[in-house]
């Protein structure tokens, strides 16, 4: 069951909130759109810069720290590495996927979430990334959720 009173984080490449372009990258996305929903209606939109995007290694868990710190308890993204998924689970954040559509917007993703049409993701969906420095990702991608 989805939560109709919730703050949702979505990785984006631009900083224009509901109209921002979404990105498949999770840990190293430039921005997160933070959408607060109350009684199933969007009531506030914020944008935070992802300070983890330039991390040497461990960007996924760092981004999770940021998301948990922002108060979001749901994240909707595409490629979650093994470390990110582990950290999201530990931080009590529910992770969802969204349909593969290059034109999809933040707004459309929120609507799909509120209609309970997004798949819950519990294992990594992309291989671990070797960061700019000495990342140690060793995952094996397992494809995306079923749509």
């Amino acid at each position, binding site marked *: 069951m989805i939560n109709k009173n919730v703050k949702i984080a979505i990785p984006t490449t631009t900083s224009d909130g509901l109209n921002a372009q979404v990105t498949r990258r999770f840990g190293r996305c430039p921005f997160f759109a933070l959408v607060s929903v109350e009684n199933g209606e969007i009531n506030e939109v914020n944008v935070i810069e992802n300070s983890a995007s330039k991390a040497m290694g461990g960007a996924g868990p760092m981004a999770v720290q940021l998301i948990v710190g922002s108060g979001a308890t749901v994240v909707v993204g595409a490629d979650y590495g093994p*470390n990110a998924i582990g950290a999201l689970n530990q931080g009590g954040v529910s992770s969802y996927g969204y349909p593969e559509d290059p034109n999809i917007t933040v707004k459309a993703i929120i609507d799909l979430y509120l209609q309970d049409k997004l798949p819950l993701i519990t294992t990594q969906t992309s291989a671990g990334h070797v960061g700019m420095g000495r990342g140690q990702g060793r995952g094996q991608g397992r494809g995306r959720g079923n749509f």
Partner: protein
Amino acid sequence: MTQILSEVKKISVTGGKGGTGKTLIAVNLAVYYAQLGYKILLIDADVENPNSNILLGKSLTDTDVKRAQIDMFVPQFSTDKCTKCGKCRDACYRHAILQFSDHFPSLMEPMCSGCTICQRVCPTDAISPGKRSIGSNYFINNISDNLDLLVGELNPGEAMSVLIVENLIEKSYELHKEYSYDIIITDTAPGAHCDVEKALSLADLTLCVTEPTPFGEHDLKRILRLIQLSGQNAEIILNRSTLTDYKEPILKVASDFNIKILGEIPIDNIVIEDYAKGTPFILDSREFPAKQAFLSILAIVEKKMKLEI
């Protein structure tokens, strides 16, 4: 610590490329000097795929093999002392520590390098050393006359190979106290990673085994760059020298790095036969070109190492 081994002659065998004959050279060196009456420790520091024991006819599961588990540091958080200040999380350069506000920190174990910085920055002494098993060392006393073998093995999927090599070096100090070695020979992994650098760190003489192919040339350059950085005393052995006519580029690498080619070992069916049987070719009583070539290389090594034969 290095003083403990100051009286011991230390030779490392490396080369960059895999499959050039590092283990073959290292084992034959060890067996040869052991036969001459030197007390030898052979260290297999190719910890991701150690197999020198096979060439010495030994299985690591044999009952006379002494195995010791190798652990690495991982932080253990004491909830009694932790104030949730977040300093360990912020100091962790791998971002392996998660700590959400009002929660105790937790470790994403596969990301931890065991560096202990978290323990050192903790203001309330809330982090104590925990352990994670990452591999093993194996010791075989008298695998053949005068020859002991120490093998390091990294568990599959683990990343910190250098910690295994560090463990082997420490273990060699201990063993030397008990057995008083004359020569310690270290067989390294291929590549030019930090575990290879560590394995070379003790050597008085580093032998780089390569082959006359573009791959041999390429990887030789990489290992020589590492050796240049760490200031080791190195020489090249050109193995399977008759494999191709790609010899000039190897000579060029040697002259570019101002490193000598100690000798060449030709392709020899007897070496391959012995290898397949798991016998060091130096013990083969027949006369054959590769053995002759190897013996003349040994003569130079002896001079360099000031060994009394």
